[in-house]
C-alpha cells in the first residue's frame, strides 16, 4: 500500500457512544481506515445501525450494549476485551438547566456519563492491561468549559472541562507504556444532541454568526480529527486539546 501515516490498518479501536452522531462517524471513519471496531452504546438499535455502515465487515467488528453509568457493567465490558490500540471515550449527554435549577440527580447523571464513566473505563482498561503498548486514547470533550461559557450550560461545561484535564493526566501517567492521550473539543456539531438543545431557528442562526466558517461541524469532521489522533501520524502528540470549532474560539 502507498504511504499513509493516517492509516489505522491492523488496529483495534473501541468507541463509546458509537450508536449515534459523532461516535457513529468515528466508528465508520476508523473502519474505512482499516481498523476493527469495538462499538459500545446503551442503544442496541443504534449499534445495529452503525454496524451496518462499517467498512470491512470481514474484521468482525463487535457490538456491546452497555450502560456506561453502571460501573459493574464497565467491569464486565473490560473483562471481555483485549488488545486495544485505540480507545475513544465519546458517549456524553447535554444538560440545559440554569444553575439554580440543577438538582443532585442532574449532577449525578451528567457527570456520571460525561466524566465518571470515561475515567472508570480508561483506568480499568489500563489497570487490566487491555490497552496495547503505544495505544492512543481520545476523549470527545467540548469547547464548552474551555472557551465558551453560555447560560444554562454550566453543568455540561463542568463535566467536559474535568474531562479535558483528565486527558492530560492520562498523558502523563500512561506514557510509561507509550500510551498517548488527547482530546478533541468540538463546538456545535449537527447531531441529535444539538437538535435537543431547544434553540429556536432564529437563535441557531444568531449563534452560527459567531463562527468564522459560518456553519456548524458535521460529525465526520470531528471523526477525522479523532482518526488523526488515533493514527501513527500523531505519534508524538500527547496531552493535546484539539479544537474542532470552525474558528469559534477566535471570536
Amino acid at each position: 500500500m502507498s504511504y499513509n501515516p493516517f492509516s489505522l490498518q491492523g488496529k483495534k479501536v473501541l468507541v463509546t457512544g458509537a450508536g449515534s452522531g459523532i461516535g457513529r462517524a468515528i466508528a465508520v471513519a476508523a473502519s474505512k481506515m482499516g481498523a476493527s471496531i469495538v462499538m459500545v452504546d446503551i442503544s442496541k438499535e443504534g449499534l445495529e445501525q452503525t454496524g451496518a455502515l462499517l467498512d470491512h465487515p470481514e474484521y468482525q467488528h463487535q457490538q456491546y450494549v452497555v450502560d456506561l453509568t453502571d460501573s459493574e457493567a464497565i467491569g464486565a465490558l473490560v473483562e471481555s476485551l483485549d488488545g486495544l490500540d485505540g480507545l475513544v471515550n465519546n458517549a456524553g449527554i447535554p444538560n440545559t438547566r440554569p444553575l439554580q435549577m440543577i438538582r443532585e440527580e442532574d449532577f449525578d447523571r451528567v457527570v456520571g456519563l460525561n466524566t465518571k464513566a470515561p475515567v472508570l473505563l480508561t483506568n480499568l482498561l489500563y489497570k487490566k492491561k487491555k490497552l496495547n503498548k503505544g495505544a492512543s486514547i481520545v476523549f470527545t470533550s467540548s469547547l464548552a468549559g474551555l472557551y465558551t461559557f453560555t447560560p444554562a450550560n454550566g453543568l455540561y461545561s463542568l463535566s467536559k472541562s474535568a474531562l479535558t484535564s483528565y486527558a492530560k493526566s492520562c498523558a502523563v501517567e500512561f506514557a510509561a507504556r507509550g500510551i498517548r492521550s488527547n482530546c478533541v473539543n468540538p463546538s456545535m456539531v449537527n447531531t441529535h444532541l444539538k437538535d435537543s438543545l431547544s434553540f429556536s431557528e432564529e437563535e441557531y442562526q444568531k449563534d452560527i454568526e459567531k463562527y468564522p466558517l459560518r456553519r456548524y461541524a458535521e460529525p465526520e469532521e470531528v471523526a477525522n480529527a479523532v482518526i488523526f489522533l488515533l493514527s501513527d501520524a500523531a505519534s508524538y502528540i500527547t496531552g493535546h486539546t484539539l479544537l474542532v470549532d470552525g474558528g469559534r474560539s477566535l471570536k
Partner: protein
Amino acid sequence: MEMKDFIKNLVEQFDEVELEALTPETKFKEFDEFSSLTILSIIAMADDEYGVRLKADDVRQAETVQDLFDTVQSRIQG
C-alpha cells in the same frame, strides 16, 4: 393543578416581576427580562413541579400565563 400555585412557581423564574403582576391573562413574554434563559428555567420548573417535559417551542407558543398553564396541565400524567 391550581392556577394560584402555578403562578407562584412561574414568578420565581423572574427577578423583577411581582406576584401581583401575574394573572392568567398576563403576556409573560413581554416582560423586559424575559430571555432564552427564562425559557430554560420554566422548562426545568415544569419538570420539577409537575413532571412535565416542555420544549422551548411550547413556551414560545404560549401567549398568556393561561396558555402555558393549559399546556402543562394537558401533559400531566394521569
